[in-house]
């Protein structure tokens, strides 16, 4: 193998096909950029899930004097009912991690804090707010177990899972991620087609050289290597651009713009970017290499 010879051929090839090379670099950069964006969004969702699922709880609201759901037909919850609920919750450990009882007085206090400076706070009386059990689950996905045990039982007005509210939000983010992924995949298909065509043009414009190489007994590997390296080089350059865009997204969009205005949640760290970057590079080079390889097999046959 003569590295110098191969390097010279690659250099010639890239220069001769400059516009096509640029087209490949740009499409690879755009498609991998979107792909990286989708992966980053997924990392963001999982970061938020970790953050929020730790904090979410299942609330079991108990009947108060004014409740009008069927299970509250007996009026406000009795002491016996409340004790039974407490006992049943205790028996559901370890699924039930911690149990916290919030009385009407405490609920009123929290309400006042939450709606400070708002006229609502003045219009709500303590007796209108239900007492509740706040339950944290060791596995937040098993909410149904708790819900089916308590929903509809006498003295329980409602079982609320905060996770369900979050899930709607996460579904939205998941949808965005799916859209980004779909566009990325479409762009990757376009990229592959472009690379196939570029290789065809390159093989055609160098058919004189390759036919002589075949004639004098150059191995397939030797004939195809410059083409493969060209494709890999263009894809690698595109992937590096995509990685650059990703770094910029993390540094500017996430860290400087979004994060300061949403301090209640956590955002993806640099570790996610570091994990995604090699995926993009390898995907780009592998995809281009394979596309080139299969095209060349057809056009540079022995």
């Amino acid at each position, binding site marked *: *193998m*003569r590295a110098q*010879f191969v390097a010279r051929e690659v250099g010639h090839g890239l220069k001769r096909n400059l516009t096509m090379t640029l087209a490949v670099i740009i499409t690879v950069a755009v498609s991998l950029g979107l792909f990286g964006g989708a992966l980053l969004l997924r990392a963001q969702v999982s970061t938020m899930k970790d953050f929020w699922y730790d904090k979410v709880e299942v609330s079991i609201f108990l009947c108060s004097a004014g409740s009008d759901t069927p299970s509250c037909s007996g009026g406000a919850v009795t002491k016996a009912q409340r004790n039974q609920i407490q006992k049943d919750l205790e028996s559901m450990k370890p699924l039930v991690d911690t149990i916290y009882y919030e009385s009407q007085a405490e609920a009123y206090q929290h309400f006042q804090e939450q709606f400070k400076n708002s006229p609502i706070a003045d219009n709500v009386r303590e007796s209108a707010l239900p007492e509740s059990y706040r339950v944290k689950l060791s596995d937040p996905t098993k909410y149904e177990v708790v819900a089916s045990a308590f929903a509809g039982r006498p003295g329980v007005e409602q079982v609320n899972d905060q996770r369900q509210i979050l899930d709607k939000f996460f579904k939205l983010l998941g949808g965005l991620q799916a859209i980004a992924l779909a566009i990325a995949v479409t762009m990757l298909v376009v990229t592959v087609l472009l690379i196939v065509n570029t290789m065809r043009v390159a093989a055609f414009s160098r058919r*004189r*050289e390759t*036919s*002589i*190489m*075949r*004639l*004098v*007994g*150059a*191995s*397939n590997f*030797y*004939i195809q290597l410059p083409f493969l390296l060209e494709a890999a080089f263009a894809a690698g350059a595109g992937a590096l651009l995509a990685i650059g865009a990703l770094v910029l997204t993390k540094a500017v969009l996430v860290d400087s713009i979004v994060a300061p205005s949403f301090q209640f949640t956590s955002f993806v760290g640099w570790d996610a970017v570091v994990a995604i970057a090699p995926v993009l590079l390898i995907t780009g080079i592998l995809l281009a290499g394979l596309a080139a390889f299969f095209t060349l097999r057809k056009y540079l046959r*022995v």
Partner: protein
Amino acid sequence: MILFDHVTKLYPNQQSPALDDVSVEIEKGEFVFLVGPSGSGKSTFLRLILREERPTKGAVWVAGKELGHLSNWKIPYFRREIGTVFQDFRLLPNKTVAENVAFALEVIGKPKAHINKVVPEVLEVVGLEGKEDRRPDELSGGEQQRVAIARAFVNRPMLLIADEPTGNLDPGTSVGIMQLLDRLNRLGTTVVMSTHDSNIVDQMRRRVIELEGGHLVRDQSRGVYGYAQ
């Protein structure tokens, strides 16, 4: 060196075979003319030797190898034992004479020191010393064909295939090319040359294999051109 054993070649979508049950043997060191009208199967004959095509029926042996059973990855190594020259020279226009010859060695991974040594040698053999740095378009047709022959011969092949090497040259220049091929033959290289040039065949008085419509119609040692009646 070369053995055609009842070889038939039928191209896809064609009615009659390009070669029909051809059996012929060419010994090591022979000089053989392959003659016949256009479409008689000469090119197919040469392409089968180079393993650019596989026979539909029968077997082709070259340098002790049955080409039908030669696996794809071995083909390049097989071709390194064969030099090839064409009517249209097939030189790279943007490379000099020396670079054109060196290219054949570069692409099979020969070391630079070896290339620097053998390229001037072979250019001397074909009579192009002093023209190493010319480009093909600065050379006459005969000189260009000498470059092509140098490229075919630089790897010292056992077999030289020449497909109408004088087809684009005037008679005077052709004589020089034939003298060169004759010299390479005397150095021990087997030469198979297809041609339409009756003068050359008549003067050289070498073995003549004549094809017509895919059939072997004449195989004559020390033959002349003239189609078989």
